[in-house]
């Protein structure tokens, strides 16, 4: 077990390092940051000044190591647009996004797992078909369009929910529905297929044969095994939600890290963009690691192989 955990942590560390290098190089190689920051109509001297001021004239590898070492200490530089330290901006905005992500995950799980279980218990029934239809629809629904349609319905036709802002929990209802619905199909499908597989297994037949109550069989014997892959999928989905919140937050004007990313991208605020990409990637890596470790803890077979 310890070897497994150490191996996974080591791999996660390497991936995180590589991700940070790639995102750094991509954002730098994509264009001259000094020109982007100087804006349109800047003179050659202005650009040169910015280049020296921010150290863009040094070799890339020096810049990377310099950026990484201060990032590890929590110093992401100063935002060129907000002119405050990036770390403060992120600390201020991250809780909103985490709240949104968590609420969406709960929404998705609460919606998806019962549907998946019912679909597996009554295969090819109306419930199964409805659940399948729901997941096909969900995967094809552009999330930004779904968000706008919710605004049309709940803020324009029946004005019961506010279209934007983040003053109270009511503002989170629509963003949560959009982000959560996006994760529902995959969680539901996995619950269904896991449950179908388990229900066919020998030990469930044994449990039925010895006369256990169906409820007991479902929850105590079947679900515990069927839900295993769902746990790690949920952690990964949580990461996707944090990444996907950029669109949702900018539509609903929620002041989370997604909206911050959107603002800093459109203003070529390189230090902030870099910091956000790094942090979201690190959260992804961390969640993947957590998912694997949870799986190994729940399922001893994984540890051994």
């Amino acid at each position, binding site marked *: 077990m310890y070897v497994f955990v150490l191996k996974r942590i080591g791999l996660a560390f390497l991936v995180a390092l590589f991700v940070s290098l790639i995102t750094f190089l*991509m954002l730098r190689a994509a*264009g001259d940051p000094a020109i982007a920051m100087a804006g349109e109509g800047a003179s050659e001297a202005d650009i040169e000044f910015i280049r020296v001021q921010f150290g863009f004239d040094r070799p890339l590898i020096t810049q990377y190591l310099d950026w990484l070492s201060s990032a590890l200490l929590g110093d992401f530089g100063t935002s060129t647009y907000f002119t405050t330290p990036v770390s403060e901006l992120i600390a201020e905005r991250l809780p909103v996004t985490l709240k949104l992500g968590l609420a969406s995950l709960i929404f998705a799980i609460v919606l998806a797992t019962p549907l998946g279980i019912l679909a597996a218990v009554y295969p090819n029934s109306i419930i199964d078909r409805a659940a399948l239809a729901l997941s*096909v629809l969900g*995967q094809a629904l*552009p999330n930004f*369009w779904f968000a706008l349609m919710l605004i*049309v319905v709940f803020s324009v036709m029946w004005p019961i929910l506010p279209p934007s802002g983040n003053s109270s929990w009511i503002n989170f209802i629509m963003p949560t529905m959009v982000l959560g619905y996006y994760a529902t199909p995959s969680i539901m499908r996995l619950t269904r297929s896991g449950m179908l597989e388990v229900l066919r297994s020998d030990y469930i037949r044994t449990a039925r044969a010895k006369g256990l109550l169906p409820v007991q069989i479902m929850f105590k014997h079947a679900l515990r095994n069927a839900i295993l892959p769902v746990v790690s999928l949920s952690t990964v989905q949580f990461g996707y939600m944090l990444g996907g919140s950029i669109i949702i937050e900018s539509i609903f004007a929620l002041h989370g890290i997604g909206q911050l990313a959107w603002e800093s991208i*459109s203003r070529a605020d390189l230090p902030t963009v870099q910091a956000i990409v790094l942090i979201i990637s690190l959260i992804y890596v961390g969640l993947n690691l957590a998912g694997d470790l949870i799986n190994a803890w729940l399922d001893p077979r994984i540890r051994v192989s």
Partner: protein
Amino acid sequence: MSEKITSFVNDLPEPQLLSPRQAMVLRARNHSGFLLGCIGLISIILLALAAPIIAPFDPSKQDLLSRLQPPAWYEAGDMGHIFGTDQLGRDYLSRLLYGAQLSLIIGFLAMILSGIIGTTLGVIAGYFGGWADLIITFIITTRLSMPVVLIALSIAAIFGSSLQIVILILGLLLWDGFAVVARSATIQLRDAEYLVAARALGMPLWRIILFELLPNLRDSLIVVATLEMAHAILLEAALSFLGLGVQPPLPSWGLMIAEGKDYLFFEPWLIMIPGVALFLLVMSINLLGDGLRDITSPDGR
């Protein structure tokens, strides 16, 4: 007694022996999702191809006197502009038709690019194993740990976005599905007898991979290709919606939704129409992909 049995057996219909291909066609004909997806996608492709003929107006021709005309089914609408006009008086139906071209081209080219990258990586990792597999698996893991939307947006913002750059970004980001599937399928086939035979015959490596291995990956790769194409189309729309994808005046559906967003409160059909179009296209492709998976994999049903 035995006579009875013989006559009974003789009366049974001749057992039909289907070739795998016939069986596949039969499964396809009975798969309603697959058929629905086919019909949907083919009609959208035909409409997109026919856009220059059937579009009633030039999609970029502005007519400021007839701005924001509602569609024909509204009281104020008329048949001249069936889907109404946008905020610059451009005919919405014409923009929608040309937008279909754009979505399909972007989705298709991005899918081809990511397919080439992902399949190459996956086949190399699966066929050679060892260090190659270790390194490529690491690259795949890294790619999966990067937030796609965020990175696509950042690069588009820095590069400046155009049609070519959007295709390039999507193609370079969405290859993970191909790589994962190609890798695991190759590992399964690596020691198949016909590959061992090909090696024993001294066939050059590129021939083995191109003519022996790849044809057997085709089915699973086509499934990934459809799903990734849908993914690319959705992502393009999202990028264009945020203003960092296809640039105006090109009639991208995402861009049309973004432009209609300002009129959300009074003219909701402006976002409804391109949104429904986008939804129908993506759903058709997804249904087709899911159907193909059911049809081509004998144990997947």
